[in-house]
């Protein structure tokens, strides 16, 4: 991360106290109290958890029905403190793609990036003269994000950015966004459903569940020391270790409640306690269904793929803790 972002990382951007936003049947935000720091912050939660409502309040688009929302002074004063890429893109229907960027660009851009370069980076140059109504979802999504970047605002609020961008380009587009944030912004707050994006690009995570704060802390904390299984799953598959399951592990019994697949290894062992019933998936998130040879019970384990493991073979489960886990343990 760049100097600008890291230097301001601990300073808070917003403090929310008992913020409520009424909904039709249930509150959209229910007594939310959280401090949002500078840096890269992800909002996580299932659909309807209140992520977009929170971003809309931070953007000033909606006001809270009760509670306090305090926007702190930025450590480095900026002409445009906040810009927003809403979930429905919020594009200006009467402007072309190029005009969108020309409208938000400051008179003297500190990034030095020309409108044409922005269009090129997000593959929109052929659509420069098109209006939003004629663009596909993916193109609108990219335009909304690149408009936010071109505004050179110090804090970007991105509501499910690049959600409709094809998987071939999504990785590159995210990297472009985060490189820009690292060089020119004091913070980015984005909502997403993609655990991989959060794990790669967020330093701090705020999890919401039915309008309430479920977790607020560093990404590593949520990864290795989540408050509960639901929160743990927001960052992808995990092995939630209840007392009943701990004795399935061959080595020293893990003391942590949550093991990630990349720390969990299923290896062939003729003396192993369990037998493989099924194997689904590839890579670091392979799903093994195992049957205990003595207890006649089954469990599902998410572990790193091992080509040597076959269905019906006897196996044991090993744990190799991630180096990041030790850091989390130390800090907690």
């Amino acid at each position, binding site marked *: 991360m760049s100097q600008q972002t890291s230097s301001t990382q601990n300073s808070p951007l917003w403090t929310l106290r008992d913020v409520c936003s*009424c*909904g*039709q049947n249930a509150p*959209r935000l229910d007594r939310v109290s959280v401090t949002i720091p500078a840096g890269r912050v992800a909002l996580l939660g299932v659909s309807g958890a209140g992520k977009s409502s929170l971003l*809309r309040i931070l*953007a*000033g*688009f909606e006001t809270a029905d009760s509670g306090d929302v305090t926007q702190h002074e930025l450590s480095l004063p*900026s*002409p*445009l*403190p*906040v*810009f*927003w890429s*809403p*979930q*429905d*893109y*919020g*594009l*200006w*229907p*009467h402007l072309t793609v190029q005009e969108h960027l020309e*409208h*938000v*660009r*400051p*008179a*003297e851009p500190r990034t030095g990036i020309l409108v044409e370069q922005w269009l090129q980076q997000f593959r929109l140059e052929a659509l420069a003269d098109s209006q939003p*109504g*004629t663009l596909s979802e993916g193109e609108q999504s990219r335009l909304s994000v690149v*408009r936010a970047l071109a*505004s050179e*605002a110090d804090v970007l609020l991105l509501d499910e950015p690049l959600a409709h961008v094809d998987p071939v380009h999504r990785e590159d587009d995210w990297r472009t966004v985060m490189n820009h944030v690292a060089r020119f912004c004091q913070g980015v707050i984005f909502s997403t459903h993609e655990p991989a994006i959060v794990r790669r690009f967020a330093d701090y995570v705020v999890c919401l569940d039915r309008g309430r704060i479920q977790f607020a802390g560093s990404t590593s904390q949520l990864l290795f020391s989540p408050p509960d299984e639901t929160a743990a799953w927001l960052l992808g598959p995990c092995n939630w270790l209840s007392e009943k399951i701990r004795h399935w592990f061959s080595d020293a019994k893990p003391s942590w409640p949550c093991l990630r697949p990349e720390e969990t290894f299923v290896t062939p062992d003729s003396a192993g306690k369990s037998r493989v019933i099924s194997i689904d998936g590839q890579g670091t998130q392979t799903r093994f269904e195992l049957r205990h040879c003595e207890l006649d019970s089954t469990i599902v384990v998410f572990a790193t793929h091992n080509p040597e493991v076959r269905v019906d073979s006897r196996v044991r489960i090993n744990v190799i803790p991630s180096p990041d886990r030790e850091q989390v343990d130390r800090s907690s």
Partner: protein
Amino acid sequence: MTLADGELWNVLLRLSLTMSESATARSFLIGLLAVFISPSLATWVTQQPPQRRRIAFLAAVAPFFAPELIAGYCYSSGVFSLVHLPTANAALYFLLLLLKTVPVGMLVVLYSPGSPISGSAFHCHRLLKHRVRSWEAVGFWVRGPLHQRLPVFAVSFLVVFQEFEIASLMSIPSWTVEIFDAQAKGIRPLATAKILLIPLLTIAVVVLPTVAILARGNQPTVFRSDAHSQRSRWFGGAFVFVANLILWVIPVWTIGASGLRHATSLTRNAAILKGFTREVSSAIAFAFCAALVAVFAAYFLLNRWRPDIARRRKTLIIAPLLPGLAGSLAVSLAVFLVIQQPSLIWLRSTPIPAVFGMAVFLLPRAVLMLLLFRSARPGTAVGAANLLSQSGDASQCSRGFRLLWQLEGRAVFWAFAAVFFWGYFNLTTASLLVPLAIVPLPAQLYNLMHYGRTMSLSTQALLSVVVPVSLILAAALSMPQVERMASGRHKSPRSKRPE
């Protein structure tokens, strides 16, 4: 109450019952027709190529804006008059109302909240028709197509049921005409209230279930056409052509032809010109003030509306719109009755009741117009422009304000223009609530139109349309300058701070 009053009241009550029944039957029939024709009109508009869609939309809604006084004047006298053939006259009146009402139905089709069961969900259910019981199918139909069509029926019903000016000029029996005439003859306020009861109950029976459905607030403003056929499009196009021909082209052409010939002689007659100018000015002043109040109130209410707010808050937002749905005559009479109270009688000589009554009547229309003109952009687009307008960078700030004007200011302007136009031609408020010393143009034209067609009246009728249209066009043409001034004047608040 004297004996004479009592007899008069009984006669009027019986008459009102009969008249409201025929008006009810007429409104019911036109409401049903609008339910079936409006989707074709909406399809015709939405299927136009993007560059022609705006013009097609304007052409489709134009018949709704045709002033009733002008249409009534055109078809009640001269070559198009069928007053001596009562059945044909009633049929012509029916046609005029149908042509005027279907465009409103189209607006409702395009902009009312979606039904709980979407078109695709309804189709999925139809695919299972062999496994579905008939009562389940009825339930799906009620929550699907009927849910969508009920508001079209209700709004069309209301527009027809409360119509007054054309009915009066074409001598069509209607409860509105009877009540207005009774009021002019000096019937007591209490008797008026009693006569109004049945029509108001009829309106409530139609309006309340519709409001209850709309207050549920499903996903808003998505047009789901189930009529994409070529025939449907052709029919929609033909309807727009015929409606504009009958409600705009023929009246303006026939009145204009004789009116223009007489225009020069009108300018030479200083007394008539002075009187006409005074009447136009007062109509403009009342309409301007009422439209301002109505649009401001509509803007305030709409900004508090969200699909997911609690039902109690939705009811609070919808409630102020309900009186206006009862029609201009009912609203004006209600205000008139209130200001007859001894403690409020002093208001009679002020413009307050007229502006208030007209604003109450115009409020639902202002909401409809704002919804219409704001529907082209998402609310978040305004939010993004608003953030930009707060920038410390002067050019960003200026562009932000320009965007805000383009996205929000223009919508408000056109909504105001439409509401102003309706207010300008509002007859019943002008007749009942305006201070006695003032005679606004609609009241004066209405009085003169009962004496048949004259060159002078045709000229005044023509000018009565030309003046507000010219004012609106002049304001629209000056908008780019206003826009430039607005964006230039808004220097960033942050840029003024000392370093």
